[in-house]
């Protein structure tokens, strides 16, 4: 399991404090910087999102959006050390909402602002204000295209992760997803294994596969995708009449450009009808299978919790540090066991429910993808999958021509 991976030289070797009688440890004091203020960060994020929206919808400039990414990486990535973090803030808020614990208004705003903007203008946050999105946007070299159907299936992974880690946060298991935040070592400048290895893997993959984290891991992206689906502003590849040159389709490495949907033959309509009917009939089975999946995953999830792990170690007679600490504490085994069982039952319930929900999402996605879209003669952008990078603008000959004329 991830928390048990050997940390090799992750843990820092430390010298003990000097033992001289006259020596007293100096008091640590951290000077608060203006950038430490959450509200200041919220304000800056709002400015960034506004600028991103302007660049994407008004200027329609790939160059401006690249500058937006560089600035986002510098400010939110390196200066604020990966804040807002789409992984951490999602879990913080999920736990806070589930357990009724206090959530700082600033943190809530950081969480809600990108979602609110997504309702208005799509995933502008992913474009460059998100430090993880920015670094992936900039460190992409040559695109290897993932076939669209496979891409749609793989995009279910973040949904699964969102549900799993929601269960973890709600049940108090902790924030295991934070171990999957691959770019954190770069932003924190702390290259401890195995996180540095994960970083290297994602950076290397990102050179060829556009935004691997955003597309196939990010749980916050699932929420943004959902909100963007209803966004008020819809991006258009060109404001001119599309000539269906397909350059934009080949220019978008994220699979967000949808090909034209023709009228379709009668046989296509019939096969489409059969497909939808079959998938609809499968819904109860999918819900059941999802629930079963969640039920089976529950013990694995609960094993991340310290109490459950401790009881298992005690039962197995393992002499770990946790066991030693427990033995010197006042909690009895009965109390610990009762707590572990209560937690385990909670996780079982939540995980099964999450499994059912996952089954529903999978079927909804499959049906949505399997049905014919509204007839459209030109290439269009799916706002829920578009990361607002502006590559399609740069690839569109009509846009380039217009820019040239403007110059």
């Amino acid at each position, binding site marked *: *399991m991830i928390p048990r991976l050997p940390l090799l*030289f992750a843990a820092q*070797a430390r*010298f*003990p404090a*000097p033992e001289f009688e006259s020596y007293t440890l100096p008091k640590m004091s951290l000077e608060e910087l203006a950038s430490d203020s959450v509200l200041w960060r919220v304000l800056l994020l709002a400015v960034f999102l506004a600028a991103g929206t302007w660049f994407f919808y008004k200027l329609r400039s790939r160059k401006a959006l*690249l*500058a937006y*990414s*560089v600035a986002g990486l*510098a400010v939110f990535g*390196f200066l604020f050390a990966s804040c807002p973090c789409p992984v951490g803030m999602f879990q913080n808020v999920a736990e806070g909402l589930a357990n009724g614990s206090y959530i700082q208004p600033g943190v809530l705003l950081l969480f809600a602002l990108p979602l609110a903007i997504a309702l208005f203008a799509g995933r502008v946050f992913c474009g460059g204000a998100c430090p993880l999105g920015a*670094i992936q946007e*900039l*460190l*992409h*070299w040559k695109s290897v295209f993932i076939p*669209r*159907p*496979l891409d749609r*299936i793989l995009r*279910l992974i973040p949904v699964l992760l969102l549900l799993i880690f929601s269960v973890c946060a709600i049940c108090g298991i902790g924030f295991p997803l934070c171990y999957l935040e691959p770019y954190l070592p*770069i932003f924190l*400048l*702390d290259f401890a294994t195995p996180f*540095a290895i994960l970083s290297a893997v994602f950076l290397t993959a990102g050179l060829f596969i556009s935004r691997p984290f955003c597309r196939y891991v990010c749980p916050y992206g699932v929420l943004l995708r959902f909100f963007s689906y209803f966004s008020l502003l819809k991006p258009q590849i060109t404001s001119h009449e599309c000539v269906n040159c397909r*350059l934009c*389709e*080949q*220019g978008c490495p994220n699979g967000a450009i949808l*090909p034209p949907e*023709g009228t*379709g033959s009668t046989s*296509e309509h019939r096969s*489409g009808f059969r*497909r939808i009917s079959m998938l609809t009939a499968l819904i109860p089975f999918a819900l059941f299978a999802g629930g079963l999946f969640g039920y*089976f*995953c*529950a*013990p*694995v999830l609960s*094993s991340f919790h310290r109490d459950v792990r401790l*009881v*298992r170690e*005690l*039962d*197995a*007679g393992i002499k770990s540090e946790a066991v030693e600490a427990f*033995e010197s504490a*006042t909690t*009895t085994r*009965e109390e610990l*066991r009762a707590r572990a*069982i209560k937690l385990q039952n909670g996780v079982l319930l939540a995980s099964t429910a999450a499994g059912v929900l996952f089954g529903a999402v*999978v079927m909804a996605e499959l049906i949505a*993808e*399997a049905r*014919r879209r509204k007839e459209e003669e030109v290439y269009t952008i799916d706002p829920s999958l578009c990361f607002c990078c502006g590559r399609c603008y*740069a*690839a569109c000959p009509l846009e380039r021509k217009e820019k040239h004329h403007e110059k």
Partner: protein
Amino acid sequence: MKNDEIRRTLRFLQWTALTFILTLGLLLAYDMYRSRAPIKQAQDQLAELKQQDLADAKLSQTVRDLDYLYRSAYFQTKDKQRRGVLLLGIAFFVLCGLFGAEMFVFAPKLKVPRGTGAVPEKERRQLLVFASCGIVVLVVALAVLRIVLVPAETKHTVQPADAQNGTSGKKNETKPAIPTETIDLLAALEAEKSQWPQFRGSILPNANALPANWDFQEKWNSPVELPGNSSPVIWDDLVFLSGGDGANYAVFCYDANSGELKWKTDAPPAAKMPEVTEDTGYASPTVCVDSKRVYAVFATGEVLCLGHDGKTLWHKQLPDPVIMYGYASSPLLLGDKLIVQYDLDEKQTVFALNVFTGETVWKTEREGAASWSSPRGFVADGKGMIFTAGNMLAEAFSLDDGKALWSQECMGGEVATSATSNDGIIYFSNTGAFTGAFRAADGEILYNNEDVPAPDVASPVLCGDQFLLFGSGGTIIAIDAKDGHELYEEDLDNGFYASPVAVDGKIVAVNLDGDLYAFAPGKDKIETEGKYSLGKKVVCVPAFHRGNLILRTSENELICLESKP
């Protein structure tokens, strides 16, 4: 500058930055890995030097110099690494900037699209194929999760303690009873006088009658299912004792008149089998009994409370009793508190448990090392107090809150015997530790006779104005209880492991051969008033019941002896 030149320059810079990042990253990783070993070596070397006599000024200065040297080297290394990591971060940012710059300066090359473009209908069919494959992958992943991530023996779930052994939760109800009554300490102690409620009988002088004569016959003989060195205790006509063999632990109840086994209640299964020697066994602590409940402690650290009908009222697991030879201290019942002296190898604690619920009323940690002694209760000024002897301290605690009232650092060695008390004085003797008396009120040592060989297993006994020691070699030594001087010494054929008890002015003791004695301490010698040979090894204290004696032998028997008419 032409576009091609700009592109080439950017590419060159990108590759340079990438090479720099890789090289620096590898060097830093190697340096961090390499710098760990010298730090460990330096710490070990310093620790070794500190073991020596630091009063030596030269050595002390060497330690200081080395410490300074190592510390400087350590922080210099850390600073160097920090600078390296910062450089790495900057290089990353520069690389991102260079990639961005290339994209910024150059619009993407437009290539003539290949093929006929995406066919939505075809993609939809492919989607279903990929979805089917995804389901297969998910099922396989799930199977791997089950097999790899969760150890098979844990069966994925934390089992309730009583479910681990396959017993039903209803059979061994662990829910503690809600206390509905209070126990008056003095009244309880008074009531215990006519019973045999705990290790070595009652706290107050026991009021049981001695057998009419020492010419015994077996009234009944019942086998005990599980072995143990715990002694039998009696309340009215019920005899209670515990047993355990490492796998099973139980409390037994026999009819004192017929020897019939009335019930047996298993203790919850232990999470971990304790390490014990054969001499100690798994059930050495003697159980306690009051008018309604029986309390047993096992070598596993499990405390079990049963009703007189054998139903479990509560049970509690104390921390794992890691102790050389095994846990053997008998609990002490004082009113509404069960006192457990828990002197383990690493930590020494006295627990006071609520007899109604098993909750810890207080616990007091003690200094010292492992001991096997049982606590002794006494009453001073109407208040309950507890005396404990450990490997370092003799201490007294308040029964109410567990606060240490006094302590004397006069103990040592392997303390296994227990104290006795009378009239505000506590008497204690253990080989290598102490043989003497303390004033209960303030702990003042009244005397300590270091010249007499003290017992190592059997606890000393007070009879009249004599304090008697029964050694495991067979020596009996009488000490004047007032001033501690030796009165006389007597050698018998075999030694005593079972603690002697004083009843009705006589001392009843049983040796390792199973010879049951009735002694009357005289002025200059001990009179043997009765001797009966059981012919079986006995290490447990005999219990008294209406003029009869009930003994547990090492052959797993419970025997009731009655005087011949």
